[in-house]
């Protein structure tokens, strides 16, 4: 295959940027497509805008859209977005840096770029945000939306804003957006993408800041929160939400309006393997009834919404670790094969109104197995920090607000 001629004077109507070798490697297909199509800058921007509008049109459609059609539209949006990323002149340093901060995992820009392909996460959020915006604009002439830890593509808002602009549903006088991300590479990409999408008028501010420290200059009507991984772990979602909820107007809304985190004891093979052998793709609509029946649900461990966030009390342990008390759960004692089961924690996200992201719809709602939680069994390796309990025991869960947040069980 002929090598693309990066870094030379271009006949494409725009100066080809210096593209980091890693980024070039990972988006080679998209870049080759860009070069082969020989589009001008204007044509590229049009294709980008079109891909965003088309993906959002399908996501907001009230008629059923085939899974493959959605996937294709979102792939196209990704292909176009990474071309903007290539133009943002990111160095490898800003592209690949990933680390654990005091409040959670900060993913690399390079890894975050894939979020825009998470079809059902974006669909569930976009539909909810759309309804919330419509609801807010019924009584307000203009609203401010804060989207912290938005990543390089701000995928829950930029496609929606593109759709509004194209369909002339809401203009930039009605919607003002503040985007916040701690990664310099995310901010650089956002600026390029927003320019390419011609959405500058909607953007009030792009802040390079830690969302757990950020203070907006204006009151917020909608707070969009997505920074989380499966099992409500690893990222600083709760610290971000706890900090930023105070800047919501008294009638402001948080999106998602509620996150319910639940626990269950499952047979790993049934839940994570057998259940999906015949399924076309991973989604809450495709879970198997048999596997669902085989679960032993433990109930809700934590609920997060505006009011619980405002009331949430932190406890500080002796070693400086902050925790939030979650629910107490009594382990059932009528399950014969409890010692063969593992704990799995999953989130159900109600974005707004009736919209949401169900279990298995997205990486963030995929049940997370916890192999350190033993009921009626003994760990093989005594060195690890295992939790050991018996059927009938009551377990108090805490949520630890550390560099890798997550649930910690304690026997009552």
């Amino acid at each position, binding site marked *: 295959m002929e090598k693309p001629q990066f870094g030379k004077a271009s006949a494409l109507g725009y100066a080809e940027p210096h593209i980091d070798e*890693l980024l070039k490697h990972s988006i080679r297909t998209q870049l080759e497509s860009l070069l082969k199509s020989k589009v001008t800058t204007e044509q590229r921007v049009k294709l980008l805008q079109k891909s965003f509008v088309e993906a959002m049109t399908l996501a907001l459609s009230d008629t059923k859209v085939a899974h493959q059609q959605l996937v294709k539209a979102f792939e196209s949006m990704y292909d176009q977005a990474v071309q903007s990323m290539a133009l943002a002149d990111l160095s490898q*340093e800003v592209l690949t840096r990933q680390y*654990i901060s005091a409040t959670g*995992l900060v993913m*690399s820009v390079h890894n975050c770029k894939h979020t825009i392909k998470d079809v059902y996460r974006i669909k569930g959020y976009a539909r909810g945000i759309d309804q919330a915006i419509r609801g807010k604009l019924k009584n307000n002439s203009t609203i401010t939306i804060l989207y912290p830890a938005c990543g390089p593509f701000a995928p829950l808002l930029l496609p929606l804003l593109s759709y509004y602009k194209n369909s002339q549903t809401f203009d930039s006088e009605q919607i003002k957006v503040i985007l916040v991300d701690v990664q310099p590479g995310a901010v650089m990409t956002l600026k390029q993408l927003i320019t390419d999408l011609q959405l500058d008028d909607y953007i009030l501010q792009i802040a390079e800041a830690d969302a757990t420290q950020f203070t907006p200059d204006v009151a917020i009507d909608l707070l969009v929160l997505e920074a989380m991984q499966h099992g409500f772990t690893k990222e600083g979602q709760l610290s971000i939400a706890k900090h930023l909820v105070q800047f919501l107007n008294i009638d402001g809304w948080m999106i998602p309006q509620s996150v319910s985190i639940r626990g269950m004891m499952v047979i790993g093979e049934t839940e994570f393997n057998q259940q999906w052998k015949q399924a076309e793709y991973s989604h809450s609509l495709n879970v198997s009834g048999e596997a669902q029946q085989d679960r032993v649900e433990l109930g809700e461990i934590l609920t997060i919404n505006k009011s619980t966030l405002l009331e949430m009390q932190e406890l500080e342990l002796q070693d400086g*670790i902050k925790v939030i008390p979650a629910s107490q759960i009594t382990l059932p004692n009528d399950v014969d094969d409890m010692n063969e089961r593992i704990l799995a924690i999953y989130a159900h996200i109600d974005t707004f109104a009736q919209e949401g992201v169900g279990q298995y719809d997205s990486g963030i709602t995929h049940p997370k197995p916890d192999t350190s939680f033993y009921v009626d069994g003994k760990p093989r390796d005594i060195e690890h920090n295992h939790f050991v309990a018996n059927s009938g025991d009551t377990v108090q869960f805490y949520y630890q607000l550390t560099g*890798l947040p997550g649930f910690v069980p304690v026997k009552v």
Partner: protein
Amino acid sequence: MQKYAVFTGSCQSLPAIQYLLQSNKLGCVVLVDAEPNPDLAQLQYWLQQNNIQVVAYNQADDSRVLARLDELAINRALVYMFRHKLRDKLIQYFGGYLVNLHPSPLPEYRGPFPLYWQLRNGEEVTKLTIHRVTESIDDGDIAVDVDIEIHPFDTMNSLQQKVAQVVPYLIDTFCQLDEQQKLSWHKQAEHAHNSAPALTEQQLMVNWYQQTAKQVVNMARAGNVDSGCAIFAVGRDMFQLLQASIVECHLAGLQPGTVIEVDRHQGLLIKTKDAAVRFDVIGTQHGLFDGYRFAVLFGLEAGMSLSDI
């Protein structure tokens, strides 16, 4: 007149052989009659080129070697890098002048891997010691020794080189005292805190729950390059850690073994139970990599755990 036999099996003893040769005290070199290895083959070639008398050591029978030593009028013997226990007949033959060169402050680090364990335990000074060979390993009275500083960046090879450099000096000191009949033998202390046993597979694995950052760093340099290295696991795959550095880390609530940063300049940082380590050099089947490149190529992400196998 002192006439030495050098019992050895490695080129690392060449400084001792060369010193004795140059000072006309070398009678022969005793080599084990065993499976040849590249190190031994190279030593044999060098001895042949220099017309040095070689005596074969039979592991089952001392009588032939004793007869040969007698023929050559050998009355002293130096054991260095000779991984076989000598039997009583041979020890008796030399009447207290069969001595061993052992690189540790005896009685500390008795055993076959003294330098490895001293590096791994972060010792800052070692000794090269000449002591009498007895039936118990590394247990006989000490004649002379010399201090050798261990640099914090020393590896096995660099420390072995330092030891080799002081071998002629120590043997010279010993020979002069011997000639002047001023050798003063003193007993080893009764108790030792550390030993230097052969390594088990388990001892080569990094244990994130038990080892501090300093211990991981020292384990890596002790193993760098040919002592098995420090092995760490990523899932089911094993890799060699050849060099690591201590990094401060104040993040609370993280399990030891958690990847805390991947950065082109900071590298790959892993939480330990007390601080963190940066992986500087990693050995894989595909070659050597710094931590950053290793993380990118092998898909290590911040938040991953290296302690969950």
